[in-house]
């Protein structure tokens, strides 16, 4: 009987479902709403697992192709896919670190002058998973991982928005919202530095951008196209003698196109799952936080800045793509080849464009995007040796969020000092 209860409670899908349930009960929702919320959370989590399976299966042949073609390993930086892929092993730690971090965040916002409440759900999930992975590599599992993981994440959820706020205020003009996104530091710094070399009076918003580039707003299209290019270019360089063994006799270009689209489709499945469980948990978190912390400032996802300079978003993204590609080509000399990671480059590059435009107009936006794309990919390449994911059967994926990677690097260095991992 005890074993039965332990098995139920240690299943991350059920744990998250219960967390959502507790949150909804605390908000005095009706019985049907509570049951609906719990079930949707559980379904969402299971869909997430299914999506990660699709992604991992598309990346395994790709990694083989890439190594056969270039004798190097290549990775795509994508947190959600990576964290989802370790859930069968570290699911319980991830779920409890996420909730613990939320409680630490509320406590800090309540007692300190930093009133930030971090509400970007997928970022909370990916950071919690990152903590679980890194602590496991340092030999810590169970409560020994959950407690420090939750503390570190909870502090980060207040600290990073606090660091970014002076820059955010410059863009938004007030303190109503904060920046709740694990790329905030490189974005505000790229914007500030890029802007130093620009001219504020020449805004990106006076540039006319043709309507036809608007399709870039659709993540799935953009990701599908970029992955198709990356996979096809790799296929060209795969030596003829190993082609058949990789593609099981199928034409290598047909095979790689299907794998590229399967990867994009896997991301779509995964995001649908994340969306379903966050749709229940985030409103519960928000409701609880608002009751406990008067004057709470919500720290929100990166697109809140896009409306301040929509053209700068496109400019910043394209510049970031160039910066990221530069690292891809340079990384033959680095520990790993960082492939253009569209989601990160798009969302972070776009925001860097907005900050760059605020500080230094057009030239500021372009330079900020370039700096962002370059540093985003370079940090992934340099930090790569610090966390080995092969024991989870994951190849071709690595962490993307720069802020989280900075925390990981500090933790690993600290760990080495004290002989952990």
């Amino acid at each position, binding site marked *: 009987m005890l074993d039965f209860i332990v098995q139920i409670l240690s299943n991350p899908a059920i744990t998250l479902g219960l967390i959502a349930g507790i949150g909804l009960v605390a908000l005095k929702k009706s019985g049907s709403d509570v049951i609906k919320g719990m079930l949707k959370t559980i379904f969402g989590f299971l869909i997430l697992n299914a999506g990660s399976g699709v992604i991992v299966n598309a990346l395994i042949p790709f990694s083989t192709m890439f190594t056969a073609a270039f004798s190097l390993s290549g990775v795509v930086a994508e947190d959600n896919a990576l964290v989802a892929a370790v859930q069968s092993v570290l699911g319980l730690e991830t779920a409890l670190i996420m909730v613990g971090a939320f409680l630490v965040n509320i406590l800090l916002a309540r007692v300190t002058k930093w009133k930030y409440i971090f509400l970007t759900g*997928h970022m909370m999930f990916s950071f919690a998973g990152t903590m679980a992975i890194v602590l496991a590599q340092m030999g810590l599992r169970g409560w020994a991982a959950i407690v420090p993981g939750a503390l570190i994440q909870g502090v980060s959820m207040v600290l990073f928005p606090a660091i970014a706020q002076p820059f955010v205020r410059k863009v*938004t003009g007030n303190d109503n919202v904060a920046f709740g996104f694990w790329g905030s530091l490189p974005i505000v710094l790229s914007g500030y530095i890029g802007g130093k070399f620009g001219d504020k009076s020449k805004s990106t918003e006076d540039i006319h951008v043709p309507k036809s580039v608007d399709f870039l*707003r659709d993540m799935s299209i953009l990701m599908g196209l970029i992955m198709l290019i990356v996979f096809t270019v790799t296929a060209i360089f795969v030596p003829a003698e190993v082609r058949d063994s990789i593609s099981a006799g199928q034409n290598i270009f047909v095979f790689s196109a299907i794998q590229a689209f399967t990867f994009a489709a896997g991301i779509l499945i995964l995001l649908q799952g994340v*969306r379903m469980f966050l*749709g229940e948990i985030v409103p519960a978190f928000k409701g609880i936080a608002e009751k406990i912390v008067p004057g709470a400032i919500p720290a929100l996802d990166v697109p*809140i800045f*896009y409306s*301040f300079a929509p053209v700068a978003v496109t400019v910043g993204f394209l510049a970031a793509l160039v910066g990221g590609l530069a690292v891809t080509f340079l990384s033959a000399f680095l520990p790993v080849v960082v492939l253009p990671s569209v989601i990160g480059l798009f969302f972070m590059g776009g925001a860097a464009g907005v900050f760059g435009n605020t500080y230094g107009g057009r030239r500021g936006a372009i330079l900020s995007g370039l700096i962002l794309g370059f540093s985003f990919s370079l940090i992934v390449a340099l930090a790569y040796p610090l966390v080995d994911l092969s024991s989870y059967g994951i190849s071709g994926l690595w962490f993307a969020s720069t802020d989280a990677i900075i925390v990981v690097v500090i933790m690993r260095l600290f760990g080495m000092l004290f002989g952990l991992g």
Partner: protein
Amino acid sequence: MKIITVCGMGMGTSLMLLMDIQAMAKKNGIVLEGEAMDLSTANGVSCDLAVASKEIAGNLNIPGAVIIPITNIIDKKEIESKVLPVLLELNSK
């Protein structure tokens, strides 16, 4: 009445937008069913009202739905002034 909110990933900004609109609806005694989603999903659903940032809204094509573009997604006053009249009108139907 079914409303959707849309953003690039369908889980960050759109969810915040949805919560703002739900709070607004509740205050005015309007019952609604809401969901946050990404652009590709949004173009395949049916709903009465879709709300998104201006750039995303330009790519929305949902037959039979009112589409409201929001210029500044964190400006609650703008959201209320654009969305509430439509909610009240749809509710009276």
